[in-house]
């Protein structure tokens, strides 16, 4: 599959998605062109839009990596969402409990605490999977719900800020807040951190024996065993890494964006991570791109409502369509369009033949 056809295919797919969505926007009483102008301009091409995209892309990227690494070891981590929550909780508790360290010391420690939280939450399904053969999909999924309720309890109970109108914790101290990269916006350093992680993980998978062997386990367990790789340890290692990544995404939401621990502070980023991971074909180095795509789509879609007034339900449809069609464009080896073209050509030839025969007759 060469690059040109791939680009063309993505473009075709986007066009298709947008025209189907356009009809709905039209039904909703708005001008689709105007709406789409906003969608693109305000996700990547304008300062504020791009900043919004980056803010969203950062947890999505880390959550994506948190799916990719375990998946490369054959473990399906649906638990990114729960790991984000527990990571955020651990990070916030640390930040609130020890509020007066210098930032250069405190922030890394908060990250470590959050990573430990996420890893702890991932260790349970990992252990069950490795040593008891329990299906990790269901364990991680169930643990997401549990984690959300735990944070809900924590911020409504022991961590509740003095006089808060809604369940949230006290603010973390100024020293712990991630630096803002784009002035006047909320673009914190989270995405850059994610990029760093991406590069480290990419090189780890590709250029170190332990990374390479992790990948082996995911591709063929028996062959990995034959190569002397301990499947159990690998599973645990992969999940711990995945959990840490998701946990750090939680910390970034707390000390980068909200400065407090909130009830429901992650908006399904753990699940977005699944889309990010698979759109990137489980290649870490591609994940920043797919995370940016998904985040941009979501940021741009939001502005369609604010700038034009498109109904949010229509926006969801457009988002779903774009994801479907882009996913299709990325994987389909033989496009439907190609076979349709073939059919058309055949028909044309046939018709010309029959016409010629008629003329001759």
């Amino acid at each position, binding site marked *: 599959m060469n690059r040109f056809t791939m680009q063309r295919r993505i473009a075709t797919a986007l066009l298709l998605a947008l025209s189907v969505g356009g009809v709905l926007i039209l039904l909703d009483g708005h001008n689709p062109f105007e709406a789409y102008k906003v969608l693109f301009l305000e996700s990547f091409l304008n300062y504020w839009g791009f900043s919004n995209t980056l803010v969203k892309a950062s947890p999505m990227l880390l959550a994506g990596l948190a799916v990719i690494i375990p998946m490369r070891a054959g473990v399906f981590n649906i638990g990114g969402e729960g790991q984000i929550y527990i990571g955020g909780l651990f990070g916030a508790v640390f930040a609130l409990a020890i509020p007066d360290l210098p930032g250069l010391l405190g922030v890394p420690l908060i990250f470590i605490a959050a990573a430990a939280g996420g890893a702890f939450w991932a260790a349970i399904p990992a252990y069950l999977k490795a040593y008891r053969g329990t*299906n990790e999909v269901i364990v991680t999924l169930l643990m997401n719900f549990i984690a959300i309720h735990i944070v809900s309890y924590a911020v409504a109970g022991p961590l509740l800020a003095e006089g808060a109108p809604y369940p949230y914790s006290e603010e973390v101290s100024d020293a712990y807040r991630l630096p803002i990269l784009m002035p006047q916006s909320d673009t914190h350093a989270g995405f850059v951190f994610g990029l760093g992680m991406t590069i480290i993980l990419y090189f780890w998978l590709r250029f170190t024996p332990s990374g390479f062997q992790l990948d082996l386990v995911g591709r063929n367990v028996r062959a990995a065993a034959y190569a002397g790789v301990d499947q159990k340890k690998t599973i645990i290692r992969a999940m711990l890494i995945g959990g840490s990544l998701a946990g750090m995404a939680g910390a970034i939401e707390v000390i980068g964006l909200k400065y407090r621990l909130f009830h429901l502070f992650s908006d399904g980023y753990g699940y977005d991570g699944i889309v990010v991971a698979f759109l990137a074909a489980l290649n870490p180095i591609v994940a920043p791109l797919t995370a940016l795509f998904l985040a941009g789509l979501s940021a741009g879609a939001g502005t369609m409502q604010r700038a034009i007034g498109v109904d949010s339900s229509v926006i969801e*449809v457009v988002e*779903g369509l774009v*994801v479907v069609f882009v*996913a299709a464009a990325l*994987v389909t080896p033989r496009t439907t369009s190609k076979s349709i073209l073939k059919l058309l050509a055949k028909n044309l030839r046939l018709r010309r033949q029959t016409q010629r025969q008629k003329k001759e007759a």
Partner: protein
Amino acid sequence: MIDLVLLGDVLAVTARLGTPIAFAALGGVIAERGGLYNIGLEGQILAGALGAAAGSFATGSAVIGLGCGINCGLISGLLLGYMSIRLRINQLVGGIALNLLLAGLTAFLSRQIFGAQAGGARVNGFSQIDFPFLSDLPVVGPSLFSQDPLFYLLIGLAIAAWFWLMKSHKGLDQRAVGENPKAADLAGVPVFRMQYLAIAVSGALAALAGVHLVLSQVYVFAEGMSAGKGFIALAAIILGRWSPIGAICAALFFGFCDAVQFKLQFTSPEIPYQLFLILPYFASLIALVVLGAKASAPASVGLPYDREHR
């Protein structure tokens, strides 16, 4: 005696809360046994719910609502099938995107059909069927013999699905497709047709969950009314070890825990309520560990089949 009444009550609630999850889980089992993930259950529940509400709203007939709901599920299933089978989109991405799409589409359509007062438009639904004498039995009476027709449909479908998968010839073919599509293909099983059939039926079953919500439980459509049941159903599939009966038991177990957690909230108001909300998830987890659900998924589930790839 009081405890028996309480138990009977809990069981009745179990059946009500568990039925939609069970429908969706059954749908998931059918799809996964044919080698396809159906992560779109959540969206398909909504599609079924909207179809049922719209059908019943327009005609005043619950049966027509049922038909409309099932059809919406069939269509959404085929859509997912086209994405997974033909386009070979990653089935998880496709399913998640379908959920997004259907959440939006059902909200949009419901605002068009019912107007802004979406939640308000009540529709006709099914009323419960009381079996004479049987429904008066203590404990099991209200839960087994005093339910709405869809509950009995669920039981019937579960048995039918079990028979189809485990006893019928075509069911063997379908399981073969889920395990090793190439082997099935080479043995003459029409793999793609089988998969389209499985995913369409799966969508219809998930839609029945939505139909149950609307026509047997609350008689209105509300945006996002699936409220995560499709995801719980995914867990029930695994807990039920990919067996139709097992999945339904798992779903009902989940409903049971939910029913119990409501009861427990009253007896111990001093305990944080989140602890009770966690209970169904926690209990399922424990059940999974205790039962040692080692059974693994159909070997080829989630892998798009490409004939010429080897």
